């Protein structure tokens, strides 16, 4: 066991998988020589060579589009979008091709490929560096979207994503890259895609969060310690396809539901969870299933970002509101 940050766990997992399987290649802007702007892929070009750790031209459609071709011809590409806010040029390839190739060819071609992208705000970054665009992937049939919130899950989910025969989008909570460390087993293990993790059991309310907001949700629960509220906290981990069973069972038990995300509220990911809870647990509900999401405004530049960022206090207040409904 070694103690690692999320960033360290991702680097270690890439290394471990590349060592095992030479069909894996990394590609993206600056991922090779320098190891990426966050250094997630640091050292891997030095270890596995330029062919397998590729500095590409500045062209996201080429990065994802060529990944598709590579996946059709024997490779397992793991590409990086430098920030999720810069993936748009490659989005056509994801929606029109990556998501569809298996179906389009009735199974002749499947695409074992992973697209990594740092997402989310809170690092006082420039414009377009702070987006949380879960919905743009979760709404598209044929794609999967996973988001770890811990080093342990980062390793296990990434290993699953690489082993998955279909394309997986891997969001990395950049705010947490180096935020804390955790013991991560050396051995190659997997965290199943599509399975949520119950972080804490509770009876009064089910709170769902993921990625960068998990630590905030945990802090919120701490803030409520002196209140008599028993929170069941779930780390969703996979957004598409999400673990309806775990969440719905929990809500059937608690009767209350809050989903917290940094993505824009309107037409945001939380709405989906609320809809499913309505469909599957309506008669158990003691309060309206509720969401706390980012305001429907362009994410402000750093000096205004605090107006947008979701704090533990806000989460705690919202939990109280739902419980008191």
């Amino acid at each position, binding site marked *: 066991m070694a103690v690692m940050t999320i960033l360290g766990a991702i680097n270690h997992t890439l290394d471990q998988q590349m060592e095992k399987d030479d069909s894996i*290649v990394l590609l993206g802007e600056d991922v090779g020589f320098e190891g990426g702007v966050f250094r997630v892929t640091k050292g891997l070009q030095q270890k596995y060579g330029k062919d397998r750790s590729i500095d590409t031209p500045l062209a996201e*459609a080429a990065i994802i*589009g*060529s990944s598709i071709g590579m996946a059709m011809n024997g490779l397992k*590409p793991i590409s990086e979008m430098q920030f999720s806010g810069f993936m748009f040029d490659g989005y056509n390839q994801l929606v029109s091709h990556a998501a569809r190739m298996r179906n389009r060819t009735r199974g*002749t071609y499947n695409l074992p490929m992973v697209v990594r992208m740092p997402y989310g705000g809170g690092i006082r970054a420039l414009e377009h560096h702070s987006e949380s665009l879960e919905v743009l992937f979760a709404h598209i049939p044929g794609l999967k979207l996973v988001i770890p919130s811990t080093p342990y899950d980062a390793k296990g989910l990434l290993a699953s994503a690489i082993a998955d025969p279909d394309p997986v989008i891997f969001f990395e909570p950049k705010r947490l890259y180096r935020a804390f460390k955790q013991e991560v087993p050396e051995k190659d293990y997997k965290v199943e895609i599509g399975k949520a993790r119950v972080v804490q059991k509770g009876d009064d309310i089910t709170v769902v969060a993921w990625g960068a907001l998990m630590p905030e949700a945990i802090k919120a629960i701490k803030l409520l310690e002196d209140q008599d509220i028993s929170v069941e906290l779930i780390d969703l981990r996979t957004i598409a*396809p999400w673990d309806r069973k775990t969440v719905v069972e929990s809500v059937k038990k608690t009767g209350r539901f809050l989903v917290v995300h940094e993505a824009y509220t309107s037409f945001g990911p939380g709405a989906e969870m609320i809809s499913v809870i309505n469909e599957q647990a309506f008669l158990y509900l003691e309060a309206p299933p509720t969401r706390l999401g980012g305001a429907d405004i362009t994410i402000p530049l750093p000096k205004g970002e605090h107006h947008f960022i979701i704090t533990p206090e806000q989460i705690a207040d919202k939990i109280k509101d739902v419980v008191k409904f």
Partner: protein
Amino acid sequence: MLTTKFDPLKDKMLQVLDPKGKVVDAKLEPKIDDETLIKMYETMLLGRTADTKALQYQRQGRMLTYAPIKGQEAAQVGVAAALGKEDWFVPAFREMAALLYKGAPLKQLYLYWYGNEEGNHFDPDLKILPISVPIASQINHAAGIAYASKIQKKEEVTVAYVGDGGTSHGEFHEGVNFGAVFNLPMITVIQNNQFAISTPRSVQSKAKNLATKAVGYGIPGIVVDGNDPLAMYIATVEARERALKGDGPTLIEAVTYRLGPHTTSDDPTIYRDEKDFKDAETKDPLIRFKQYLIDKKLWSDEKDEEKIKEFTDYSNKIFKEVEETGLVDLDDVFDYQYETLPPHIEEQRQRAKERGGK
């Protein structure tokens, strides 16, 4: 090298056969065995016949939207004939004749336009990608395939097709450049059929020819008479050799003319110049290639009629089979979304079945 002699900056066009089927430069004439020459011509003729029939079926309300290849057979077969079985073919959506030459069954090509995904379910040994509707996006796939060939040391070349319209698209730029930067075994063929739907070639680029784009990518380019199968053939042979030697990609502009509509939903008489069209008809690739084979005593007008009849019957027979396949099964539209269908989609399938879906 042809790409030097016919440097696109000189705005010259590589031609072996003139519109009447005469060899314009004997030094350029490739040594192709008779069997292959006949296969090339027959595939062009099958393409032409199956195309004509598809338009008819559509007018009879039996076929859906279809994108005809009429006039572009040489731009396709000339390339396909220069490829090996091991090479990859990445079509746009108007390459029926090339796909036939590469081994795709007509039934599948018809099935696709008939509205059935089975039409893209090719035998993987054919190394054909499915039809790509989002313009120019397939070039990036070709670049990725070629990258994989290169680093896995597979002796194979990837050919991607794109239209004149497609050259304006960002994905064209990114894909061709990616191939150039990594020196990939890849050939990009621009089928310049003078139109993107109703939009003339002149709206896509102010440049004299589209092959000059190669200059900006630092790779060889060449303008080829796309109605001349031999010119297309030799340009491809050279490009393929270069690719296999590790000398990187080539950009080929095949200058041709779309003699039919854009698709069956389109009326080209609205926008095309009648004189240009008439002129293009005289440059029909089938006319010249037939004459070349006749001159070589490999073909005759009688044979031609016979073959057209045979291919007509064949097309009719195949299309009948296609029509007999009927609708797509409910399971088929669910089964291939993922290797393992997530439970909520499985439920959607079950609900559709309960509603009586099959």
